[in-house]
Each structure stands twice: as C-alpha cells, then as structure tokens.
C-alpha cells in the first residue's frame, strides 16, 4: 500500500516574527562556538521546559522542548544540563533572567520559551541568553503554525539557537529521502521513503513492487529523482513530492539503462548516466524534456555526477585509468582533470553546498571510508571506516554528512549514519528498519 499524507503543514507553514527589538548593549565577548576541526568540549546549555500559556499547549510545550534539546545535543556541539540541576524556575516568559543562578550551574546558553494555543494553532516564542555576558543573544522570535507542525517549529527554534551560537546555518528543519529496505539479503524489497532529518514522520513514496535505488532531492526540495526497475530496466524517474506521481525522466530507447541521476543546482536539468552497449557515460537533459546532451564520452564507466553550487563545474567518477577515481570538468563538457590522488578507489563524489569540499566513498584494502577533500583533491580526510560505508550526502550547511553503512555477513543490513566533517559525532539515524541511500533536502521553505 502506498501511504500518502500531506507533506506540507496546513495553511501558512511557519511565520517567524521578531518579538522585541534587541536590547543593544556593548558586548565585548559574545557567546560563540566556532566549528573548526571539531569541538572537544560540548557547550552546556539550559532549556527549562517551555511554559504552556494555556491548557491546550501543555503537551506541545513539553514535546517542543524535548525536540529542541535533542536537535542541539545531536550535533555533538552542545550538552544539555538536566532540569533537576536548575536553581531558578522560569515562571513567566517575560520574567527577568537571574543570571547568577544559571552561571552557578555553568550553563553558557539559556533557552527560554513558551507555547500558546490560539484557535487550533500553536504559537511558539523563545529567547536565547548568553549567561556569562548576561544578555540576550539575538532577538526573541515567534513561530506560528498548525498543531501538526509542532516538530518543524521545534526544529526552527533549534536552528535559530544553533545559528546564533555557531554562526553556521542550521540544518534541523530538513528532510531526508532514502531507501527503506525489507527482507533477506538475497531478496530485498526496497521503497523510497521520506523522513525528517531526525527520523521522525516517515512516509513511503513508492511501494515495494519495483526495485528502487538512490533517490535525490531537487535543490528546492519539491521534487525527487531516483532509479526504478518499473519498466524492467533501471531507468530514471521523477516525482513531485506534492503528488507522488512518478514519471520517466525522458523516453529512452529500450535496452538503454539510465541511472545515477542528480539535479543541476538550478533544478532545471538532470544529469545522469546512460548505458549503451555496456558503456556508461554522463548526459544532461532538461526536466521538462528536450534534447539530451552528452557530457562525457569515453569507453569507461562514467557515473555519480555532482555539480558545484555555482553550476560551473561537475565532479564525477570514472574508471578510465583502471579503478574508480574522481574527476572534475567544466559543466558544459570539456577535459576532465583527476583530483583523487591517494591509493585505493574513489567514488560517489558529492560537492558540498558551501562549495568548499567534495565528499566521497573510498575503498581500500577491503575497507570502505567516507571522506572529504578540497575541490582540487588536496587535504583528503577520511571520516569513517567500516566493512561498507558509501554514498555521502551533505546537510545543507555543508558541515554534516549522512551515508549508508552496511554490515557484513549473511545477516548484513544497511543503516543510515551521520558524521560531521571533522569525523566526530558518528551516529546512527533512527529509521523504522533497514535504510540506505540517504539524500538530504535543503532547508525547508
């Protein structure tokens, strides 16, 4: 059965409005956590359960507080001080902050909020305080949304807190499209599925009749492209998230497998591999149809294309010299330059949305690694190692990756993991079962 649920929050999704003008005050040393090569000591924060302004908001206040804290803890950059340690009690959203009480428990950031129900909708307000500078960090903000959208409001609050403290863009109000897997290793059933970045709100986009592989989000998050065996051959399909109606990307003559699709940064075109007579090359076609442009032309395997965020260059893998290696070429075609230089094989390159790194899968001496390198191939850094790690996808802020990790043996099973680009904070993402091929959405609109 195909489950279909509305993907968007009903009505106007989330309206964020500043609560109060910032209290301007000289601030010599503001609270700031710089993510460089990995933070060793997480920053302690206090988050008293948000106040429920009325009875209808009680559950939401507790749930929202829990999700905000989980978002922050999950980064590995923040540590939550348990509520049992708090000296002050926050009884009113507008009450003055007793900074010494929070300094005494070594809370560096304090998040205070309230939730109110207004005619079936939720209003969430929060403020962030820099405890040791004794001042607010940014303005208070208010989010309004439907009751169903409480998780997104929590993620929005957490994104704000993360951004104000780290200076990086938040990535909590995002989704991940992935492949849900069931059944034994030699008879796997696969379905395209969608979840919030933290594994909540799983929704299946296809049934398990046809083998499906490697879905990718469009740059605006409203479309998904993937490979399906619906016709008997692997072929690229496109789906609008709003209606879940799959359609073939283009009419491809019988016998030609198409696979490994990704959107161009403007979302208007798709690059993919097409196989003819056993040889795979990379092509580009407009989403709306039209002429197919051949981007590579070699008697070797060319696949796994990914564009630089400005659309000027394309990274891909090729085995033209024997094993898989990573190459960069001008987006419109031209001479590829190999950038992977180490020993072993390199595949599945993905350009960071920030443009600064390329993530990849490396295979060497029977082990697989997820790694990152600069776009010229320098500063290679391996972040993981296991029996089988593959297929990294970037968080929209370019600071965290998800990937597939598969265990060995007859009971071997895939799961989705996340790791930050310093190699810290390796975590398994909570999925309802076996899961593979994650693709991270942009920040939701």
């Amino acid at each position, binding site marked *: 059965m195909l489950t279909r649920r509305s993907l968007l929050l009903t009505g106007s999704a989330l309206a964020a409005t500043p609560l109060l003008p910032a209290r301007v005050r000289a601030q010599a040393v503001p609270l700031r956590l710089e993510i460089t*090569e990995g933070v060793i000591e997480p920053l302690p924060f206090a988050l008293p359960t948000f106040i429920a302004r009325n009875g209808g908001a009680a559950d939401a206040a507790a749930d929202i507080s829990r999700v905000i804290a989980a978002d922050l803890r999950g980064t590995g950059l923040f540590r939550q001080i348990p509520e049992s340690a708090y000296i002050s009690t926050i009884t009113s959203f507008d009450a003055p902050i007793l900074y010494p009480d929070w300094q005494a428990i070594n809370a560096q950031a304090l998040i205070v909020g309230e939730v109110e129900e207004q005619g079936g909708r939720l209003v969430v307000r929060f403020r962030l305080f820099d405890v040791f500078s004794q001042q607010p960090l940014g303005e208070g903000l208010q989010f309004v949304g439907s009751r169903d959208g409480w998780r997104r409001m929590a993620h929005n609050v957490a994104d704000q807190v993360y951004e104000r403290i780290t200076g990086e863009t938040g990535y909590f109000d995002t989704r991940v499209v992935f492949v849900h897997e069931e059944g034994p290793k030699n008879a796997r059933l696969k379905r395209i599925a969608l979840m919030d970045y933290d594994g909540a709100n799983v929704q299946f986009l296809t049934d398990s009749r046809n083998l499906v592989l490697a879905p990718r989000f469009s740059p605006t998050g409203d479309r998904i492209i993937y490979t399906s065996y619906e016709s008997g051959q692997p072929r690229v399909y496109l789906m609008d998230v709003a209606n879940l109606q799959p359609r073939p990307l283009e009419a491809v003559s019988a016998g030609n497998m198409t696979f490994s699709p990704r959107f161009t940064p403007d979302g208007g075109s798709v690059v993919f591999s097409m196989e003819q007579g056993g040889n795979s090359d990379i092509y580009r076609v407009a989403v709306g149809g039209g002429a197919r442009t051949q981007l590579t032309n070699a008697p070797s395997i060319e696949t796994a294309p990914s564009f630089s965020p400005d659309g000027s260059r394309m990274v891909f893998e090729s085995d033209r010299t024997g094993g898989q290696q990573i190459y960069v070429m001008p987006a419109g075609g031209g001479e590829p330059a190999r950038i992977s230089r180490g020993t072993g094989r390199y595949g599945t390159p993905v350009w960071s949305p920030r443009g600064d790194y390329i993530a990849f899968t490396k295979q060497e001496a029977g082990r697989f690694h997820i790694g990152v390198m600069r776009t010229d191939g320098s500063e290679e850094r391996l972040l993981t190692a296991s029996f089988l790690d593959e297929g990294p996808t970037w968080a929209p802020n370019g600071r965290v990756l998800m990937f597939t990790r598969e265990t060995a043996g007859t009971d071997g099973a895939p799961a989705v993991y996340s790791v930050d680009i*310093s190699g810290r904070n390796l975590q398994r993402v909570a999925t309802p079962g076996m899961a593979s091929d994650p693709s991270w959405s942009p920040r939701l609109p």
Partner: protein
Amino acid sequence: MTFRFRTAALLLIAAISVSACARGGLNDGAGGLNGQGGFGTASDPTSIAFFNQSVGDRVLFAVDQSTLSVEAQSILTAQAQWLMTNSEYRALIEGHADEQGTREYNLALGARRASAVRDFLVSQGVPDSRLSTVSYGKERPIEICSNEACYSQNRRAVTVLSAGAGV
C-alpha cells in the same frame, strides 16, 4: 567567550563481525530472477531446465572485470550453439556484481558484464534481436556471505531464457 578547537580528524573504526559463509541463495539454480516455472525437464534437451543445468546458464567474472575467461567462453560457446538450435527462445542476460563496490558503479559494471556476454553470443551467430541485457549491480546476490567464496558466485552474468518469443 570564544571557543576554538583544532584536533586531528578521528578515524572511527567500527568493529565488524564476520559471519560464516552461507551456501545457497533463494534463486540458486532457478535460472535467474525471472525464471519461474515452465522449465520442462532436464532430460528434454530443448527445455530451459536442460539449458540451465547441462549447458550452464551463467558465467563468472574476476573482481571488477568483465573479461570472459576461457572457461566462460567455453560455456558461452555451448549457450550459443544451444540458442541457435532452439530458435524459439529469447534470452535476457542479467549482469551482477558482488557487494564490494559502490551501488551505481556496480550497476554500470553489471551492464558491462551482461554486454560482454551478449557480444560473445552474437559473435557466435546468435541473432542480436533475440538477446537483451539488464544489470542488477549488487542488488541481487545469490550467495549472501561476505567473503570471496560468495563474492565469486555473485560476480556473474546469467542467461535467462523465455520461450515463445523467438524471431
């Protein structure tokens, strides 16, 4: 206050458990993914069962290769002779890879293997119009352990026959 930390990237080594090799997949000997029923009996030399068991429906490949070994060429020569004798059959050649590789590369590798078999059969006189190919990459292993004993069986191209659709 400002926090700035620089540490070397951690290399996370996950412990893995290596399971013993289990022999026999679900599709073992069943003539590829699409083979189901209607094989006839192996004693009938014009049956799919005879082709699968006596001629041999599959050839194996070395790691990351699509080159046909001498043994593979021998099996394919027999396949070609059988196909030319039994012209009422069509053949779908499935290319497969072992799990030691990334998903999309393995799809392309499976296509290469299937194509190598197709080209060989055509070179032996089988009409191209009776042959088609598909790649399953690493998606459909027949042996599921994680060592070479299984991998070598999974790096395969299987010639799957269907009746009644000849030229």
